[in-house]
């Protein structure tokens, strides 16, 4: 009896797209894809038609027009004669600087709190629980506003720092004074910190009105060279240790390698600090850090730090208890066990969720608008959008930029993750 399961070889028929299980899955996917593309096309077409009905078009040429407004925090030179495009870049840099420091501080806070929350000390672990729960369960916006209001309501106004002639004669002290040996002034508007200045700078050049400073480049180059030299030195020490079993003293040699060259360079350039001085309405000189930046940074770090603490705690708990016991059995102290045995293994669990925390923090910087922080949302998505009336263009551009930043962060972190994950050979 011939087997009926043998498929007759009749070639491809159109009905097979539906009735043949080999093709059906693909057919359905293709149809869904076409429908989805049609929907997208309809959305775009509808938008363009409705804009046309209002006599509007999609046009990005406003980016090259004069902006005409001022921005208080600027990492590269800015004045109101420059273009909307440059204002967007100023805003982008403001976003990036707060996101960069935010990620660093949040990670430090998160790791410390996450470890301490597992502490056997009842008080410490409970305190950390309170911190984590308080910050995780209250909206970030409220924390940002709270920190900002605390700064602006509690600190004295700049004029309270002034010593008038009568006060000098009477010998009375002003209502407020500067902190840290008269170097830092924290007013209700911002913090003025000393600025590093050079007597004999190396000069520089400008690219697109962005000054490139040779002195900074030289300093960075020396620092990197010192770090590389120190690593080479430590490698040699390790080789000696493996050969002879005796580790030579390294700490003062490392310190010399790391700090002497850069100190010499800065001394040669004539580094000194410019201190803020009360002049007119405000403190002048030094670096002025607005409270909007400080408040945003503190609130973002503490808030995201609470989430990272939970990620770190989960990572540590994922490592088998046997690892700790084995380390103790070898005579390791608890903090060396944590830093040498547990954390390196926990990193594999920690990093993937850490990536999304970094992404959250970066996107959350757009809440800075609540405290008048002019980030990308404040310049391109705020003032530029309003003054030009190009809502759709600004929003699309802004989404594209945030998307790009997020993709860059996740690809960097994925690369890092690949380097620490378990190597299977």
């Amino acid at each position: 009896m011939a087997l009926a399961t043998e498929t007759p070889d009749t070639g491809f028929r159109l009905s097979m797209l539906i009735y043949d299980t080999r093709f059906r899955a693909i057919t359905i996917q293709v149809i869904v894809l076409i429908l989805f593309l049609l929907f997208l096309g309809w959305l775009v077409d509808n938008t363009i038609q409705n804009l046309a009905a209002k006599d509007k078009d999609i046009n990005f040429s406003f980016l090259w027009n004069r902006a005409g407004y001022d921005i208080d925090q600027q990492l590269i030179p800015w004045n109101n004669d420059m273009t909307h495009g440059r204002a967007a870049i100023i805003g982008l840099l403001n976003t990036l600087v707060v996101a960069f420091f935010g990620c660093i501080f949040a990670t430090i806070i998160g790791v410390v709190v996450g470890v301490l929350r597992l502490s056997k000390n009842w008080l410490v672990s409970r305190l950390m629980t309170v911190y984590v729960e308080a910050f995780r369960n209250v909206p970030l916006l409220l924390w940002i506003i709270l920190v900002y209001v605390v700064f602006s309501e509690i600190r004295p106004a700049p004029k309270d720092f002034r010593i008038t002639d009568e006060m000098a004669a009477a010998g009375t002290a002003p209502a407020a004074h500067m902190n840290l040996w008269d170097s830092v002034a924290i007013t209700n508007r911002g913090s003025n910190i000393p600025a590093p200045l050079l007597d004999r700078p190396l000069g520089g050049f400008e690219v697109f009105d962005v000054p490139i400073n040779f002195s900074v480049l030289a300093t960075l180059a020396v620092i990197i060279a010192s770090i590389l030299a120190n690593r080479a030195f430590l490698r040699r020490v390790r080789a000696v240790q493996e050969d002879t079993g005796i580790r030579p003293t390294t700490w003062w040699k490392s310190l010399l390698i790391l700090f002497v060259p850069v100190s010499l360079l800065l001394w040669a350039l004539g580094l000194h600090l410019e201190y803020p001085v009360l002049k007119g309405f405000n403190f002048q000189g030094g670096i002025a850090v607005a409270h909007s930046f400080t408040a945003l940074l503190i609130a973002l770090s503490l808030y995201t730090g609470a989430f990272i603490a939970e990620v770190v705690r989960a990572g540590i708990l994922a490592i088998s208890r046997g690892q700790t016991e084995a380390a103790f059995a070898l005579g390791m102290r608890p903090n060396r066990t944590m830093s040498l045995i547990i954390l390196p293994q926990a990193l594999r669990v920690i990093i993937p969720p850490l990536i999304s925390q970094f992404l959250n923090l970066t996107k959350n910087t757009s809440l800075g608008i609540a405290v008048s922080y002019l980030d990308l949302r404040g310049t391109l998505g705020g003032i530029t959008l309003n003054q030009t009336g190009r809502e759709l263009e600004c929003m699309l551009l802004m989404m594209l930029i945030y998307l790009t930043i997020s993709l860059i962060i996740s690809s960097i972190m994925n690369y890092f993750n690949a380097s620490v994950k378990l190597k299977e050979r």
Partner: protein
Amino acid sequence: MKKSVLLGTFAAAALVSGMASAATLDDVKARGELICGSNTGLTGFGAPDANGEYQGFDAALCKALAAAIFGDASKVKFVPTTGETRFTALASGEVDLLVRNSTWTYSRDNDLKFDFVAVNYYDGQGFMVKKDLGVSSAKELDGATVCIQTGTTTELNLADFFKANNITYTPVTVADDSEAQRQYVAGACDAYTTDASGLAASRATLADAENHIILPEIISKEPLGPVVRHGDNQWGDIVRWVYFSLVIAEEKGITKANIEEVASTSTDPEVRRLLGLEGEMGAMMGLDNNWAKNAIAANGNYGEIFEANIGTATPIGLARGLNALWTQGGLQYAPPVR
């Protein structure tokens, strides 16, 4: 089957979105109420009172418009908008018109596709500072920190003024008037700048108003007025003429109190045309013949609205100045009803 349902939904959505640009008057009538874009809260111009009802100089114009359309001044819904959201709200059809201290500028008129139909308040940008700052002129503000509302013309004027006078400042950009006030009072900025009328309104709400002064410099022209979407001329004409009817009423001495008496006794042909006793003026705009009578009866004439909300007898205490009638040396002038 599924596909046709989907397409039907799309078609319906397209129809709805297309309707926003159709005749606004028909939409308003069909809806049974007027939606007026107002301030989030600027005392004297447009701010909710203790009962949550919008009151003020701008709000009164919306009520007069509702009265002209429906014969009932209460058929108006106020939607609070900020400096940032107002034009988007108007362009998208979320509000029928915007009466919110908005400055008439070239680019808003042409690039944003709006029509400014009238100027109900001629204003200029000023500065408010604390008295103990010891400043008597805006030109002494070199190095000062200045609070400004974002998304406004004042932002650009401020930059121009400091540049023209070769002095510097630090901007503190805030979203709305109340936040600006909070920052100014907390001392986060030395000066607060916005339209002089808005400064007077803000100053009136401060607990220690006498410790704050408005500097003499007026650094810009700020003609404030009602805004409608470009392209619906009938709707623009209605808003414009409802406003003009209030100005004409003041000129002719028609008040909220005496309007019935004037209507029954007046022999002035223009008054009779305005109040709908002669001719078919209302029909030309698609309204009832007594549109202007209802509008005036709602809150009184332009002068009455001014004095009741922002005039010298109120805490805001603004003099008529440029906003007096043309017959009294001001700029408020309405074309004839003919």
